[in-house]
């Protein structure tokens, strides 16, 4: 069968010495950064991106993907031990993971998340194998109207689904798209919004934007909050053995979590964070002992961790088959592919099959490495959490500066990272979510391009897009999402005002 020969060819690429070595390096560094509280997978991938510029594109992607899922793996460690989520999608794991630590059972929790993560990752990879070729085949028939509709849907979903303030999420998407219009127009070559700098004719540097918004602003925030030196409990092999009852209760939450994660991961715009929340909520509802949740129930870490890693792997489906990144981290991955001159999309699987199948195979090897790496090395990660942040962040600042500079050998881009770092800090203080901005920036130029082409085809008749089945359905769904988020805004406002009344803070 064709699928099997592709899978076999992929494994052949992935087990080459170079790819194996970089896969290992990726998951190792990813787990390292993920375990450090505050540095999420997004910041980790962005900061390590410059290390891959000189690699072969497949190897570069193998390493970056390793960093991504390694960071998601590692993030659960600090959730469990310190009650500080390593990455936002590990936040749910704190709810039951930290109580287990307080009961002196952190070993069991760490062991359980490793198993759940491995299973979730494997499930996501199986889905990637089976679904991606089908979607890519299907997507070959897509025209600009379909692409426009998918991207608009993805952008609106990214802005509204996971946000408590949909208007602010939408504003971030639009700001991202506006930043994306800076630079030469594709059809006329007119430089837009260049502020008189010729460096901006190629557009805003994606690396400078991502590193400034996520890396620099993160550091400013972290050093302004003084974190107490954590007390960390030693983890031994013995302490990892779960009770028989816990073993019996684990498989079903793990299976359900993987399914939920894969579904939300594959949808553009929704990502691991929402998948983990839904996975947790469902387990709590299905459980016969919901009162145990929040007090160290094993189901409460199995399902979200499995969902998280399934979502991470499934997120590669829209990126690789449609060229539409589902999350901000996937946007960085896609940026990496573009830097190597590879355009992700339905043609990727026919034109560069080695990248797709090699990468997919490396995912599974990477997950296996993580399983092997994590059980004996948990003690090392635990000790890592004790490195003082005060000597770590100067190194990270230097890495960011060097990384941004090397892309175009340009001091101008170092200035840009400074600008976006300050912008990111201000936006965070104003309680904006930054991920939608990055997705808007990446998708913005593609939305514009496809919109222009579609309007050229339909002679300026916007409604013609609604008459085509796929684009029409997606645009109607987008409209429904917008209506729903207006309702959420009104409801939130009422609740906040009612709350303010209760504590006597509202006027009138």
């Amino acid at each position: 069968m064709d699928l099997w020969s592709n899978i076999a060819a992929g494994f052949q690429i992935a087990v080459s010495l170079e790819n194996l070595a970089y896969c290992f390096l990726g998951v190792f560094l990813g787990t390292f950064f993920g375990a450090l509280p505050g540095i999420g997978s997004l910041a980790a991938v962005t900061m390590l991106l410059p290390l891959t510029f000189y690699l072969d594109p497949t190897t570069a992607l193998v390493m970056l993907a390793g960093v991504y899922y390694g960071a998601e793996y590692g993030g659960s460690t600090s959730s469990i031990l310190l009650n500080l989520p390593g990455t936002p999608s590990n936040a749910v794991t704190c709810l039951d993971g930290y109580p287990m630590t307080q009961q002196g059972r952190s070993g069991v929790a760490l062991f359980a998340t490793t198993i759940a993560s491995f299973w979730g990752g494997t499930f996501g990879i199986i889905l990637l194998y089976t679904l991606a070729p089908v979607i890519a085949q299907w997507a070959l028939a897509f025209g600009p109207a379909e692409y426009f509709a998918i991207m608009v849907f993805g952008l609106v979903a990214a802005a509204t689904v996971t946000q408590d303030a949909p208007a602010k999420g939408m504003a971030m998407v639009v700001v991202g798209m506006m930043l994306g219009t800076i630079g030469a127009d594709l059809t006329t070559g007119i430089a837009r919004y260049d502020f008189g700098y010729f460096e901006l004719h190629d557009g805003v540097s994606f690396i400078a934007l991502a590193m400034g918004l996520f890396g620099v602003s993160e550091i400013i925030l972290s050093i302004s909050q003084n974190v107490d030196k954590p007390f960390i409990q030693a983890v031994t092999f013995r302490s990892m053995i779960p009770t028989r009852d816990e073993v019996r209760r684990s498989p079903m939450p793990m299976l359900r979590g993987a399914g939920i994660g894969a579904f939300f991961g594959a949808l553009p715009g929704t990502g691991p964070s929402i998948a983990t929340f839904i996975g947790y909520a469902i387990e709590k509802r299905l459980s016969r002992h919901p009162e145990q949740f929040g007090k160290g129930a094993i189901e409460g870490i199995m399902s979200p961790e499995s969902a998280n890693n399934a979502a991470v792997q499934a997120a590669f489906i829209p990126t690789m088959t449609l060229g539409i990144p589902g999350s901000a981290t996937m946007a960085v991955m896609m940026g990496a592919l573009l830097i190597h001159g590879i355009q992700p999309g339905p043609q990727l699987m026919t034109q560069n099959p080695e990248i797709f199948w090699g990468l997919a195979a490396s995912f599974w090897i990477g997950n296996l490495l993580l399983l092997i790496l994590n059980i004996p090395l948990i003690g090392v990660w635990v000790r890592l959490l004790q490195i003082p942040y005060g000597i770590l962040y100067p190194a990270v600042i230097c890495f960011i500066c060097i990384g941004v500079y090397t892309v175009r050998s340009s001091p101008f881009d170092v200035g840009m990272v400074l600008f976006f770092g300050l912008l990111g800090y201000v936006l965070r203080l104003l309680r904006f979510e930054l991920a939608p901005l990055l997705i808007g920036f990446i998708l913005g130029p593609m939305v514009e391009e496809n919109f222009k082409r579609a309007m050229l085809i339909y002679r300026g008749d916007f409604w013609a897009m609604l008459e085509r089945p796929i684009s029409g359905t997606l645009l109607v769904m987008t409209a429904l999402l917008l209506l729903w988020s207006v309702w959420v805004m009104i409801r939130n406002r009422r609740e906040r005002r009612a709350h303010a009344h209760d504590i006597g803070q509202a006027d009138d």
Partner: protein
Amino acid sequence: MPRIDPVEILSGLLILAVGAFFFFGAAEYPMGSMSRMGPGYVPRGLGAIGMGLGVIIATGAIRMHGRLPSVSWRSVATIAGAIAVFGVLLPRVGLVVATFAASAVSMLGNRDAGWRLVAVTSAIIALICWILFILLLGLSIPAFWTDI
């Protein structure tokens, strides 16, 4: 005077300003028509949407309670200073000095760090960057002022 949530009002005004900048800035570029869009068409549309969202966010602030978060000026200044120092020094004196200086400046944000810790940490970071990026990865960045 009705109560206003300062975070939301500032957020709304910021988005309104950015939207207005792109909306009015787009007037410099040809608009074209719906069927043949010029370079100004999409930025103008985005600017209009941005201004609308800014107004929505700002009106959401009215009659709500809130407090402005405090800004950690020391952290902002040291991190911004470190990046600026790096950008200025790198093309002039090379990577090793630039990373040493950037690291040292960034550590000024940490009140607990004495000058000895700053010097040792920065020297180690400069050494690591030199070995990693220039000797091992072979990036085409000048290491010292002699390489420029």
